[in-house]
C-alpha cells in the first residue's frame, strides 16, 4: 500500500508517517499544502491520500477542496480526509457525489493505529468510511416524521454500520448476527425507505444517503 500524507503541521505529518511505516505501509510523500499534494498525487499515483481538512493559505477547507479535485482528476487514488470538525455537512459534501474510495475521519483517530489502518485499507478497497462520531452526530438529531422513523432499532443500527462503509460480513461480525438475519433486516429497511430495484451496491448507497440526509 502506497500513501501520501498532506498536513501543514510537520510534527503531525511525521508522526502519522512513522506510525504507518512501522506498520508496514509505504509512505511515498509528505506535503504541507494543497498544491504540493495535487502535484504529488499526479506524479506518484498513490493508493491513498491522507488529507488534513485545514491547510494554507486560509486554513478553512482547502483540504476538502483538494480532496474533491483528487477524486475527479485521479479516481485511482482513494482519499481519506482528516478533520478537526465534528460537522456532518463537511462529510456529506465529500461523499455525497460518489460514496466510494473516500472517507472522513476525525483527526485524533490517526493516533490509533488499528483505526487508522482499518480506515486506510477500507478506502483503498473502494469503501466509504465515515467516522463513528459523525454518524452519531447525525443519529442524535430528532426529526419530523420520515421513513427513517419507521425503521426498527436493529434496522437503524445496521444502516449506521452501512453508513460507516461496512460490508454485510462486517455488520454480521460487529452485531453478532447471522448473514441471513442481516440480509432480512437490510431488505426490510430498503422496502421501508422505498428503495426497490437497483444493483445491490447502489441500493446500499441510496439507503445510506437517505439515512444520513435526514
Amino acid at each position: 500500500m502506497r500513501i501520501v500524507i498532506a498536513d501543514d503541521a510537520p510534527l503531525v505529518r511525521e508522526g502519522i508517517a512513522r506510525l504507518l511505516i512501522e506498520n508496514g505501509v509505504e509512505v511515498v510523500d509528505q506535503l504541507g499544502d494543497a498544491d504540493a499534494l495535487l502535484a504529488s498525487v499526479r506524479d506518484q499515483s498513490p493508493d491513498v491520500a491522507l488529507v488534513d481538512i485545514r491547510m494554507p493559505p486560509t486554513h478553512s477547507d482547502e483540504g476538502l477542496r483538494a480532496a474533491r479535485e483528487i477524486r475527479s482528476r485521479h479516481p485511482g487514488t482513494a482519499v481519506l480526509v482528516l478533520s478537526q470538525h465534528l460537522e456532518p455537512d463537511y462529510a456529506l459534501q465529500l461523499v455525497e457525489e460518489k460514496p466510494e474510495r473516500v472517507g472522513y475521519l476525525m483527526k485524533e483517530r490517526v493516533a490509533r493505529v488499528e483505526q487508522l489502518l482499518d480506515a486506510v485499507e477500507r478506502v483503498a478497497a473502494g469503501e466509504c468510511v465515515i467516522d463513528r462520531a459523525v454518524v452519531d452526530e447525525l443519529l442524535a438529531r430528532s426529526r419530523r416524521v420520515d421513513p427513517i422513523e419507521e425503521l426498527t432499532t436493529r434496522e437503524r443500527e445496521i444502516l449506521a454500520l452501512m453508513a460507516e462503509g461496512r460490508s454485510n460480513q462486517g455488520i454480521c461480525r460487529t452485531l453478532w448476527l447471522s448473514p441471513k438475519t442481516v440480509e432480512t433486516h437490510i431488505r426490510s429497511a430498503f422496502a421501508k425507505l422505498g428503495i426497490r430495484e437497483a444493483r445491490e451496491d447502489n441500493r446500499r448507497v441510496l439507503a445510506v444517503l437517505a439515512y444520513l440526509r435526514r
Partner: protein
Amino acid sequence: VESVRATAGLVLDNERLAAEVRSQLAEVRASRGRIVAAADAERRRIERNLHDGAQQRLVTLSLALGLEASRADTAAAAALSRAQDEVEHAIAELRELARGIHPTLLRDEGLEAAVEALARRTPLPVTVRGTVGDRLPDPVELGAYFVAAEALTNVVKHASATEASVLLERKAGVLRVNVTDDGVGGARIAADSGLAGLRDRLEALDATLVIESEPDEGTTVSAEIPCGS
C-alpha cells in the same frame, strides 16, 4: 433688543449643543460597532489558535503515545491506550469550546448551514425555514447565529417545548431571525442572562431583539439586524 439678542444666543447655543450631541452619539455608535467587530476578529483568532495550536499539540501527543503503544507489550499498550482516551477527551472538549467561540461551519459555509447544524444538535425537533442569500458581514452573521443558538439553548433549558422553528429572512437591508417554540412561555430577558448580553451585542449593530412570551403560548425571540443590502 437686549433680550432678543439673548434669546437668539440661547437658540444658537442650543443648536450647537444638539449638533454636538448628535455627532457624539454617531461617534459612540460607530465605536461600539468597531468594538464588536474587533471582538469578533479576536474570536476568530482564538478559534484558529485552539485548532492549530492546542489541538495539533494534543494530536501530536496522542500520535507519540500511539507509536509507543504499537511497540509495547500488551499491559503497557493498554495503559498507553487509556492515556490516549484522556487526550481524546481533551481534544473533544477543545473542539466544543472552539465551536462556541467561532463556529467553523459559519465561517466556511455561512449562516444557513450553521443554523441547520445548530438545529440538528438541539435535542428536540427544530425546523429551519427561509434563506439568507449572499454572505453577510461577520458581525451580522455571528449576531444572527448567536440569537439562534441562545434562543434554542433556552428552549431546551426552560420551555418544556415539543418542537421549535427558526426563520431566517432577508428583506430591504434587514436580516430577521425568529425562533419560536410551543412551550410554557413566560420568558423574559433577565438582567445577567445570555439574551441580555446578546441584546448589547445587537444594539451595537443598530439591531433590535424582542421577546414575546405569554404564559402557555410559547415563546418567540426575534432579532432584526441591518445588513446593508
